[in-house]
């Protein structure tokens, strides 16, 4: 069934909007239509967290609470979900434990970022049973505060360990689940003025829509695409929302590889991958905030083909493949070679990324490093990833890839070539370092100079071998 009416749950009632403007952000909707002004705009690009709201999603017979940046999420993406904003946390005049803690621990000064922090902490409160410092910091790394220096906010969050887990959302859970069940996803097809928006529920439906609307933009997390509206001030005239396709939200272990569906949120992948490639999980934690990782996908990272997409060098050295489909055909391509030039890929009109396959490694050592000015939620100046098999001090297999070093994420083939079948010696490593200059001609921008990029790329190669030789990590957070 296809509908033009977007339905979601707000304050335990079903809200219906017929043909909403598909370029209207949830933030603007909340502030101008719901007339609730607690949710703030700080940057309109998902970089400060002041606009954080929480989305309740049905998961089996429970609700999964996701903090998201409402400034880069469009209204139709609310379809089938529960919307929770800061004003909703007060119940019968009584503040939520998260709110009380923030007041009592002096967690607000100017107060502008505070609603965002409250919502991030609320999602944490709902999704975890105890709040260790690591969980707290991860939960609020996407929320910027310029006044407090964060300490009182962390103290407030820690104090929640002593608080009751029962809140109104808990008490009303059954009602909410019933409502969510009632509005279970339908295919959404919106026409609003000159703008079209589709949220198919199945791959088949996606294939049909894409066939009929080959110029549509696919959107998942929207960290890139939404900015066309919020920053470039342009319209997105035809959008296809990927994250309603539940058949693409999966991680499967096959014989030789892991398969990740295109609409799988990064945060799910990060939890899964940690036991196979722990560095992969560490990089994803620094890829973006919880708000970003809740909605963004690996497929999105691949499709935007950004030279600084942090999963890409990692997937490259892991010899990943992508499954691409259109109406009739399925193609399986190696990721290596998929990126043609700056933000251009081999993906043709009418095609979409269905899934990503990451082979299991048997004897290989996999490592990844991310260099950025800030630890949290920053774009890499350089991201490096290495995969190696060593036998009797001889390099049997090696794959090296970098982000931030070129107009596309790229393997360092010349460097690899000299290392392959050579012995693990300082001399060979020095030679390989030098060859990176042949592989890459990095640029200077706001994040780093070309000189620094080249030097740090070389040093990361050295670090990789040092860590192998010394059999320990040389890291600030080791």
């Amino acid at each position: 069934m296809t509908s033009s009416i977007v339905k979601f749950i707000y304050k335990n009632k079903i809200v219906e909007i017929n043909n909403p403007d598909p370029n209207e952000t949830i933030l603007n909707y909340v502030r101008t239509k719901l007339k609730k002004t607690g949710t703030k705009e700080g940057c309109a690009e998902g970089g400060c967290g002041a606009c954080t709201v929480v989305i309740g999603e049905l998961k089996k017979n429970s609700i999964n609470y996701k903090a998201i940046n409402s400034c880069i999420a469009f209204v139709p993406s609310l379809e089938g979900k529960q919307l929770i904003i800061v004003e909703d946390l007060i119940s019968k005049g009584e503040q939520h434990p998260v709110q009380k803690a923030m007041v009592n621990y002096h967690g607000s000064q100017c107060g502008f970022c505070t609603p965002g922090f409250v919502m991030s902490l609320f999602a944490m409160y709902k999704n975890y049973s105890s709040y260790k410092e690591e969980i707290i910091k991860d939960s609020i790394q996407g929320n910027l505060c310029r006044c407090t220096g964060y300490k009182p906010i962390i103290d407030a969050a820690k104090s929640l360990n002593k608080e009751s887990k029962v809140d109104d959302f808990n008490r009303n859970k059954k009602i909410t689940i019933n409502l969510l069940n009632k509005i279970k996803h339908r295919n959404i097809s919106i026409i609003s003025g000159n703008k079209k928006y589709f949220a198919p529920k199945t791959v088949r439906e996606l294939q049909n829509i894409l066939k009929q609307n080959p110029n549509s933009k696919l959107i998942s997390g929207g960290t890139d695409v939404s900015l066309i509206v919020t920053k470039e001030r342009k319209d997105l005239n035809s959008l296809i929302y990927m994250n309603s396709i539940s058949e693409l939200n999966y991680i499967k272990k096959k014989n030789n590889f892991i398969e990740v569906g295109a609409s799988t949120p990064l945060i799910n992948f990060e939890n899964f991958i940690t036991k196979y490639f722990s560095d992969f999980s560490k990089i994803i934690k620094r890829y973006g905030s919880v708000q970003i990782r809740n909605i963004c996908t690996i497929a999105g990272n691949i499709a935007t083909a950004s030279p600084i997409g942090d999963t890409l060098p990692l997937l490259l050295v892991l010899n990943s493949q992508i499954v691409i489909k259109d109406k009739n055909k399925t193609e399986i391509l190696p990721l290596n070679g998929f990126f043609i030039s700056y933000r251009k890929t081999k993906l043709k009109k009418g095609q979409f990324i269905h899934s990503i396959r990451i082979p299991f490694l048997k004897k290989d050592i996999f490592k990844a490093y991310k260099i950025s000015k800030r630890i949290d939620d920053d774009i890499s100046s350089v991201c490096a990833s290495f995969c190696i098999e060593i036998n009797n001090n001889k390099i049997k297999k090696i794959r090296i890839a970098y982000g931030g070093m070129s107009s596309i994420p790229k393997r360092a083939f010349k460097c690899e070539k000299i290392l392959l079948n050579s012995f693990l010696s300082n001399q060979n490593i020095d030679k390989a370092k030098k060859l990176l200059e042949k592989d890459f001609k990095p640029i200077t921008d706001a994040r780093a100079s070309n000189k620094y990029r080249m030097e740090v790329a070389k040093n990361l190669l050295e670090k990789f071998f040092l860590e192998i030789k010394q059999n320990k990590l040389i890291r600030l957070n080791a």
Partner: protein
Amino acid sequence: MLKMNSNSFIEQIRPHESGKKHVSGHANYIDDLAEPEGTLYGAIGYSKKAHAIIKKLDLKEVWKSQGVISVVTHKDIPGRNDVGAVYDGDPIFPKKVEYFGQPLFAVAATSTELARKAVLKAKIIYKTLKPIIDMKEAFRKKLFVLKGRKIKRGNPLEKISKAANYFNDSFTLGSQEHFYLEGQIAFVIPQEDNDFKIYSSTQHPSETQQIIAKMLNQKNNTINVEVRRVGGGFGGKETQSFIFAAICTLLSKKSKRPVKLRVDRDDDIIITGKRHDFHADYEVGFKDNGIIEGVKIKLLSRCGISPDLSGAINSRALLHIDNAYYLSDLLVENYLCKTNTSSSTAFRGFGGNQGMMIIENIIDNVARYLKKDSAEIRKINFYQKNKKNITHYGMKIEDNVINKIYSKLIKSSNYKNRRLKIIKFNSNNKYLKKGIAITPVKFGISFTTTHLNQAGALVHIYYADGSVHVSTGAIEMGQGTYTKIAQLVANELGLSYNKVKVSSTRTDKVPNTSASAASSTTDLNGAAAINAIDKIKQNLALFVKKKYKLRDDKAIYKNGTIKFKGKVFSFNSLIKEAYLNRVSLSSSGFYSTPKIHFNNKIFKGRPFLYFCYGAAISEVLIDTLTGENKTLRVDILHDHGRAINPAIEKGQIEGGFVQGAGWLTIEEIIWKTNGELTTHSPSTYKIPAVNDMPEKFNVKIFKNINKENVVNKSKTTGEPPLMLGMSVFFAIKDAIASVGNYKVIPKLNAPATPEAILFSINHIRKNYEK
């Protein structure tokens, strides 16, 4: 004169007065106010060249754009086309463009989105001129916004030439974006008689009023500016808010409709001024024991296109070039360089922090030159109690506690042992290195422009229930001034806190206010409120004397009672009785800071009422292969006198430290050579996030009472804690020095980004291996 309720002082932890509203989304910022019907929304079109003459500004397509109701340019300004507070030089809409991002026109449309789309449709033809972006180039070309100055004490050149040791080098400090979370915004509602009601997110409503009155050629009494709260200022809304309020008023005047102008984050960062970056060339002569004999500094600052507050900011840099050190012989030449970048402006520390960093870096290098622990060299140069206690501007330091704070912190944080352990760690670790440093803070409190040290207040007591309403010139921007003023007022009247309300700050209630700046807001406005209360108390005393024949000028106000010698009244009953007997229960109040004076020409006087002191020890870990770093532990000991609300002061100390550390480490402002800013969004400009907080963060308070007659005998915290962040920079430098076995002095400029750190390490490796 400040007459405080001497019977009781307070030290009372309370949540922020708006805390409950902040956490529930019920605290209204300007964008949250209910809009009258017909409200329009503004957007600004700005220059895409840094230096150019506008040949043609074609706005036809802008006018035609969907939803556009009105467009304004310089032709629509009836009066002064400038928002400069002290000097001209900040045109609202210029004819000649001087920086990339300078506003050229604005539109009002039926929605913010449509207004922002419309401004992109302008066709502008520029005649491009060569922009000067680098301050050193401006210096070479003698391009200045104001005349520079030279300050001198003793015979520095002679002392330097005769000193046992000599060293010269240069040092650069980066700029900083305020990144208040609430972006610039104004909301203007036209009133009858061509009056305007202006809501502005500003630290300075009175100046907003004056500038708009001049722009419109109207009287000041036609402009009413109101500010309830500001979502972060840090100096970035002291003057930088004016242009938005002015443009918004122009749009409202032309369209005759209410207009809201909310500026997008990127545009905000591109249009507004930032912290002054500084460059210093210095020479220093010193004894073998590290005592500085003479210093000569050439001090350049990037001021951008106009003077704005650069005169006062550079002056404060000169006034803090000593930090906590006695400099007997000193020469500083200061140049205020004009560049084609947005006009550099106030930012927490206001030049003081830049001055302090320069001397701290010199001292650090002196210690490294002598191969001594910099903690010792710092200490040996400190101001003393009874001698070496006159600053280079002639002020005697009467409240010095830096020696005590410093020794106490070194002991409590186990500095000496930890330093030895770090040296050992470094000799055992090739790639990861640790560093540690202690830095002191001495920061002068008062506006250095003496006349600004005044404040007004308006206090009403309502007879019906004894509740109290307070207005002052103070702007609540997160620093907790409303909370502290309410606490002071409650204490003075002996009432419970919840009977007092501090309301929004309005130019029609309290006139002629100074900016909420210079850390002085509560000191000044709290004192003015107390003065108003004192006047009401005098009315009551007179009434009691007349009616009850009780003569007592020192009645005690406590626990809801008023105790006159011989009779105790309940507060409410005496208030009611006074009203029925036609006694005024309302008064304005005024305060001007005593003792201070400063002759700017000869650079002598007592510019400050008192000093704030503190010290911080930071320990860091760096990765010498990448330049990445991490702050492991920070110990702070800070003096806030007798705090009205210790929790608020602690918040200022922690937050100030993190902001200062951010300035010196990850926050980097970069302009392209054409003057375009490349760091204008949270994705390119990084302020500290939660994992930048030190792993261990111990903040302790130095028990003290302000010697001067300041509200509650407290000391302000506002700006000074920012400078505690200096310790992180020098700890990083210490870690870098370990790469050369502490034998080579690291060359490190701020900010110490991973890149700066790695290149500094390279410099050491090159020189050490020689």
